[in-house]
């Protein structure tokens, strides 16, 4: 049959067969792929903290797209590829990366982990000016590409550590030990001993001296340990990552699923507890789709309120000198 066909036509038919790829033969397209993600998360900074956030978020199936941004392009690409190669084991189908913030466009949440690393012995406040400069290159770009996003600025999880250590002391899992640390994250944070309870039983009713210097069991050491742990872990392994990554995953879960759980996160507290300055301190906040939608009004005793105000003052003293 082919012998009577025009050789040019035969050549054309051969070319057509040649060009039909395996994909074309296998798959028939019905409709264009919807490229808009519903639940995109961007992580700025692919250091230990950023990547701990990334792996936790991936394993909890919180996002359908994950974008990574960093200034170090090799590290960035390497981390992205390493995550992509694990795609078989999780359900986030799109993982992208880039130095340019355009890759972060349309994010629901942007997690900022980038920043100068806390050196051994360096207080958190010492880091500030170094980090302001870094933030100046990050925040406007994020806002430009995802004007409706929630921005999560990351730090060590004090309350989680507090609850873990209380749990260790009592032999009860941390999720059943309730305790809050508010105020400035770090050295001058305020542990709310009156609120510490298990199954609604306030520990302070069992031991009124709880958390004070005259407490025979020295519960106040737990708070000291919380502050010290970050420095200790940094000394031992060089940085902290897992606990932060996991706590960020917890916050992201509350936001994306509009859980409206209460978390001790840092928010603008001007107007509360007699604070007049524009500063951010941790208080129990309700987290949902709109970010921090409500705050819980805790009753602070006079000592706690004084400590809280002192935190505010300390922060304001630094903030007012910052060069933007």
């Amino acid at each position: 049959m082919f012998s009577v066909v025009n050789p040019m036509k035969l050549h054309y038919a051969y070319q057509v067969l040649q060009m039909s790829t395996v994909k074309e033969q296998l798959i028939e397209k019905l409709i264009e792929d919807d490229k808009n993600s519903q639940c995109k998360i961007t992580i700025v900074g692919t250091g230990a903290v950023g990547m701990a956030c990334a792996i936790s978020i991936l394993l909890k199936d919180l996002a359908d797209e994950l974008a990574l941004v960093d200034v170090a392009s090799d590290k960035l690409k390497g981390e992205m590829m390493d995550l992509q190669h694990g795609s078989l084991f999780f359900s986030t189908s799109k993982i992208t990366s880039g130095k340019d913030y355009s890759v972060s466009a349309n994010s629901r949440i942007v997690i900022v982990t980038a920043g100068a690393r806390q050196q051994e012995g360096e207080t958190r406040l010492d880091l500030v000016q170094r980090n302001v400069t870094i933030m100046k290159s990050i925040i406007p770009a994020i806002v430009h590409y995802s004007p409706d996003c929630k921005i999560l600025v990351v730090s060590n999880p004090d309350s989680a550590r507090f609850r873990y250590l209380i749990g260790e002391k009592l032999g009860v899992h941390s999720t059943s030990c309730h305790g809050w640390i508010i105020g400035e994250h770090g050295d001058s944070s305020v542990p709310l001993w009156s609120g510490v309870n298990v199954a609604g039983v306030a520990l302070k009713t069992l031991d009124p001296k709880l958390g004070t210097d005259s407490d025979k069991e020295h519960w106040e050491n737990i708070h000291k340990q919380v502050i010290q742990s970050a420095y200790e872990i940094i000394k031992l392994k060089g940085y902290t990552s897992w606990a932060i990554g996991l706590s960020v995953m917890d916050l992201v879960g509350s936001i994306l699923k509009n859980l409206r759980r209460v978390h001790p996160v840092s928010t603008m507290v001007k107007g509360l507890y007699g604070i007049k300055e524009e500063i951010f301190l941790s208080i129990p906040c309700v987290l949902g789709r709109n970010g921090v939608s409500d705050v819980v009004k805790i009753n602070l005793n006079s000592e706690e309120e004084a400590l809280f105000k002192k935190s505010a003052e300390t922060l304001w003293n630094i903030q007012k000198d910052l060069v933007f």
Partner: protein
Amino acid sequence: MSWTVPLVRASQRVSSVGANFLCLKMALCPRQAARIPLKGAWRFTSVSKMATVKSELIERFTSEEPVHHSKVSIIGTGSVGMACAISILLKGLIDELALVDLDEGKLKGETMDLQHGSSFTKMPNIVCSKDYFVTANSNLVIITAGARQEKGETRLNLVQRNVALFKLMISNIVQHSPHCKLIIVSNPVDILSYVAWKLSAFPKNRVIGSGCNLDTARFRFLIGQKLGIHSESCHGWILGEHGDSSVPVWSGVNIAGVPLKDLNSDIGTDKDPEQWKNVHEEVIATAYEIIKMKGYTSWAIGLSVADLTESILKNLRRTHPVSTIIKGLYGIDEEVFLSIPCILGENGITHLIKIKLTPEEEARLKKSAKTLWEIQKELKI
């Protein structure tokens, strides 16, 4: 929650040494009754007023000790070990995790970091020690310890550096968990799986090399990228020697049961106009590429090991391409480990899938076996 003091070595499942401290005149500091800090010293207080917040709050109900069913130990807290740890924790597969490393500072730091995240993983029992007794009664022991593959270094060059380490590790592991399954991740994985098997004298079902599990995951990811389909729906197997000489079994590559070979008979060969063999070449190259860019690989291998862990601990009986003793199959006479599809369950590798290979694929496996044996026979085990 660390049971890492010598006191407990005698019996792994004893809590307050059978004593009710509240009855003793001279008691141990109540704060330390239930858990002993890593470096803690025993302190004594007189018992005149023993009421602690704990004793006021909580009444002990049973003296029965919890028996841990799903304990996993990870040897090596480098990037790979920690990636395995976090993946296993987040998948909620276990009730106790033990970490072992020579670098005590790093080990303690990593353990504390994980412990502080325990409210989010719902897994409090994370212990660590330089001493292997902490791994006692493990269901599964994952060995990631070993020298890291240097930039440009082939996996085979790592061998001699790692055998010495293994001699120490394996004897300790076996002593404390004589019935465990071993997953070997350290490279070169096929040789070190053989070494582990020889040193442990375990039956072959309980020594599993992570082998081509990761190569296959990468392969499926890349096929998925090419076709615009999630890797889970793209089936394909890479077998044989993990790394440069791995064998992609093109005849098995399929989507929804449609073999790609039926659509393109030249697939995987040099004649293939679409050059699908580049996909396999990319699988090999990307490992080196990632090492060049970020210094090491961690996430993908951690996730793939967690996947194997899940199959074993939950007795899923899924098939995985893992490294096992292959002598007697495909005309191979040497005592070597290579990856073939295995059924993984609570007894480790319980069955093998008798996959049909082309003569060319079989030849490649045989060649790998020879190469591995050349090295293995020089090893002093």
